[in-house]
């Protein structure tokens, strides 16, 4: 193999190439602009490129199942607690319609999918939130499913991995939603006491009650590049404080700089990172003999 005689240059993302790709405005029907660089793409181009923008590497939103399949060993995922569905406990106006619409659009019953799977041969309890389902908001069902997944991990000495994506607590279930923050956090307490490894991956966007509960309580907190992560949403901050927000505010890179994340990992390399973490934790439970 050819060995360079000089010290190889550190590899950075080559921005010059990115800039050279012209911005296209192929506004044919079904095409859409990349939210980051405004290049127009077709669905086929997006899928071909693994849900990234071919020009700037923007991570497009993906559904809960895609996330799970993206990191788990083939055919290893078993969904659990799939029979849980939301009621309208407060008789909140329009809630039933919104639920029906979300179910129809996403073919999911709720904003989180949980179950067990294997990653690199290690058994894990895993969950992924789906931002398309009422903005991934956490109501009774989301809280209950996450709690059950965490409790299962604690009981069976499994590591717990969750992909977070949420606008916060679901307003339509009122205080029942808010209390899910406390409920899931208490469950994480039991997970830690049981000695299970807990990895939380914060994807775009993770805000509000989810960030302020189980999402932030993991042993390892990983951000996806460019993901918006915070407690109060940027629009509300701008409105209430009247301050112009600094560029990059509340993005994963900003949070890493401020000490809130362990690392940022691009989506395509997420599986290899999880395998590495599970390997060094010997399956993720230090009590295991």
């Amino acid at each position: 193999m050819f060995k360079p005689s000089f010290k190889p240059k550190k590899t950075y993302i080559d921005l010059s190439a990115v800039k050279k790709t012209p911005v296209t405005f192929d506004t044919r029907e079904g095409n859409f602009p990349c939210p980051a660089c405004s290049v127009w793409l077709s669905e086929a181009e997006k899928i071909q490129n693994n849900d990234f923008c071919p020009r700037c590497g923007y991570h497009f939103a993906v559904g809960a199942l895609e996330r799970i399949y993206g990191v788990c060993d083939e055919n290893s995922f078993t969904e659990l607690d799939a029979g849980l569905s939301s009621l309208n406990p407060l008789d909140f106006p329009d809630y039933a319609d919104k639920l029906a619409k979300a179910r129809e659009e996403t073919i999911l019953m709720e904003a989180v999918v949980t179950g067990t799977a294997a990653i690199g041969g290690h058994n894990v309890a895993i969950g992924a939130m789906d931002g398309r389902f009422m903005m991934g908001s956490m109501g009774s069902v989301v809280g209950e499913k996450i709690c059950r997944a965490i409790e299962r991990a604690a009981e069976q000495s499994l590591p717990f991995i969750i992909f977070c994506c949420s606008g916060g607590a679901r307003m339509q279930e009122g205080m029942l939603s808010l209390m899910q923050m406390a409920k899931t956090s208490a469950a994480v307490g039991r997970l830690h006491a049981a000695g299970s490894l807990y990895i939380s991956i914060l994807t775009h966007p993770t805000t509000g009650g989810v960030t302020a509960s189980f999402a932030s309580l993991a042993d390892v907190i990983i951000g996806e590049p460019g993901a918006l992560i915070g407690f109060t949403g940027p629009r509300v901050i701008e409105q209430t404080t009247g301050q112009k927000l600094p560029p990059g505010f509340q993005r994963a890179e900003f949070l890493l700089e401020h000490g809130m994340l362990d690392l940022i990992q691009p989506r395509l390399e997420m599986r290899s990172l999880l395998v590495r973490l599970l390997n060094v934790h010997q399956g993720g439970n230090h009590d295991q003999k």
Partner: protein
Amino acid sequence: MTRNKFEFESNYRLLESKLAELRDLSVTLNCDFSNEIAKVEKRIAELKAERYRHLTPWEQVLMSRDLERPMTRDFVELLCTDFVEMHGDRLYGDDPAIVGGIAVFEGRVVTVIGHQKGKDTKENIVHNFGMPRPEGYRKAFRLLKQAEKFSRPVITFINTPGADPGVGAEERGEAWAISQLLLGLSQLQVPVISVITGEGGSGGALALTVADRILMFSNAVFSVASPETCASILLRDVKRADEMAAALKLNAVSLKDMGIIDEIIEEPVMEPLLSSQSFTQSLRYSLKKHLDEICGTEIPDLLEMRYQRLRKIGRFHEIQ
């Protein structure tokens, strides 16, 4: 409560002014209406009290935000002796939106932590309108750990619009600070009792409301988000906050039905809370009663009950 807080008060004011006219007239004409006047006066007061007893959810929201409501320091002064306030999170600063320290309540040394709003705009700027920053939550966490070390029960007083929605709060990890408290309180090895005294605003209030017992004042509210926020997001019209206040079921009666709170402490009608002896007595009595109960429980049992209490919250449908 003497100021004109609600629109409906102007109706009663009108009645009262008419009555004053009658009184003047009786003097001018030199005829004695004093019996009749006294009767009408009584009737007006009754009607007004009756109306105050049936506030709408939105009126309760406004009531819960009233700056005349007593705050944590007032409750400590009323209920406790030997209060020593403790400051600072040992990491960054001290947050005046949360006060905490140790005090003696009914012969028991307790740790007291609670939100603190100001009584006027000037004070409110100091206390950041009762909206804690991460430092406040970290101070609370530190005081909880201190309580645990010395086996002191904890009393928290809740009255906040929510956590501070500022750039600095985000930079210093507001979400991380709150989540630490939620987990920390769920495992704290001492009894915890919370009293929602005013506005229970979202996660910023919940952070101090994970407890073995939760008491709530009859005109206090506790909500997933403010009715204004819900109205602006769901209805795109802030002016319809009153509709949202009703839909969110955020008052004490609804929350007791949902099993989120344990006991409602009835507020006096048209009287400042702390001047009402029956109110202060029932607050003291309830606090003591619940504290005696939870202090008499073995800690492992208490923690299991605290966990199960949270665990069962939520309503859903399940098909096997």
